[in-house]
């Protein structure tokens, strides 16, 4: 795909390939989304990327819908739809066929081996997501403290994450984050 081509086909190609490498779920692909959208294609700024991550977390539905926001910012309504279907379609088809296949290889030990092999990789990817987003969002000491506070509260309590997001929004509005 050359960068000069139609933005919709660039979106489709980008996210279709990315989805197949999103080991462990949508959040594992955050660093790659950031790399493509901010560094490679210059679709948005670092701050805008942090903003749309925040919006995606505030909205209901699967976390992966951050791609709808990226697609929309690139090519409007059609871009949002194209990005969403590209990110969800290929792996959905794959899941359909693999789930049928697995019923036939019931005595194979490969599913267990592959799964065990992917666990540490997916944790590494999620940690990288947190790192990339922290670099985008935590631009002051106070911002870092809000992040640390949310991490501690989320680990230590069973508080609904939405409350922590809203608390962050209130602190941001009050000008704490800077």
């Amino acid at each position, binding site marked *: 795909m050359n960068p000069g081509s139609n933005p919709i086909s660039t979106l489709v190609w980008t996210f279709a390939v990315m*989805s*197949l490498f999103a*080991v*462990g*779920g949508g959040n594992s692909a955050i660093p790659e989304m950031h*790399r493509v959208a901010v*560094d490679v294609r210059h679709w948005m700024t670092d701050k805008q990327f942090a*903003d749309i991550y925040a*919006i995606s977390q505030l909205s*209901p*539905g699967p*976390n992966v*819908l951050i791609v*709808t*926001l990226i697609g929309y*910012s690139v090519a409007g*309504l059609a871009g*949002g739809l194209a990005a969403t279907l590209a990110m*969800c379609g290929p*792996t*959905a088809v794959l*899941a359909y066929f*693999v*789930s049928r296949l697995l*019923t036939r290889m019931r*005595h*194979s*030990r490969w*599913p*267990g081996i592959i*799964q*065990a092999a*992917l*666990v540490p*990789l*997916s*944790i*590494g*990817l*999620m*940690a*990288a997501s*947190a790192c990339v*987003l*922290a670099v*985008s*969002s935590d631009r002051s000491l106070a911002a870092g403290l*809000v*992040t*640390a506070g*949310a991490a501690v509260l*989320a*680990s230590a309590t069973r508080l*609904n*994450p939405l409350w*922590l997001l809203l608390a*962050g929004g209130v*602190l*941001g509005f009050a000008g704490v984050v*800077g």
Partner: protein
Amino acid sequence: MGEPAELGWPRRVGRSKSQPMPPDSLPAAASAPNLPTSPPPGLIALFVAFAKMSLSGFGGVLAFARRAIVEQHHWMSAEEFNETFALCHFLPGPNIVNLSVVFGSRFRGIAGGLAAFTGLIGPPVVIVTILAALYAHFGEVEALRRILAGVACAAVGLLMAVVLRMMMPLLKKRDYIGLALMAAVFAAIGLLRLPLPAVLLVAIPISIAISFAIRRRAQRQAKP
């Protein structure tokens, strides 16, 4: 705040000596749709159920999916749900989206998979698109910028908590090889910012080879 953060996940997918996904229990979940206590759902029921759980799922839909499928509708036992989710977790892509397709197609074939998929994705995409349009118009308003900056900080903290929770099984088992693989992927993607496909095309074969070798050695030790 990925879906795996929610209940029951770490128990199932550790690099443990016992099979994380026992092969002989998979078919029970895969080929026995008539086992659950309720009659299998129709297409509209699938669409509505997944739309509901998706719209109530702030910060991950998994917990809501489990509640709806297992407790509310009794379409699957808790055990079957865990097995189905384990399968969807080891496939690439958004887990809950994979789950909707696998679940829907198990009961109503391809049409069922599509019904669950569109129920899960459709309504929230409408909401997110409206938010995207609002952001495109008002993203530069100072108050909104400050609010979103604050939300982003908290969201990063939540993600860190998820990562910590996922790491605990590796730390508890002192799985140094797993931790080293995790650190290598973290450094390559998070610090060096290398492209994801390139990193995984190297890391996945290495990790599978290691995982295979460990399991073989464990089996040899088990039966000398």
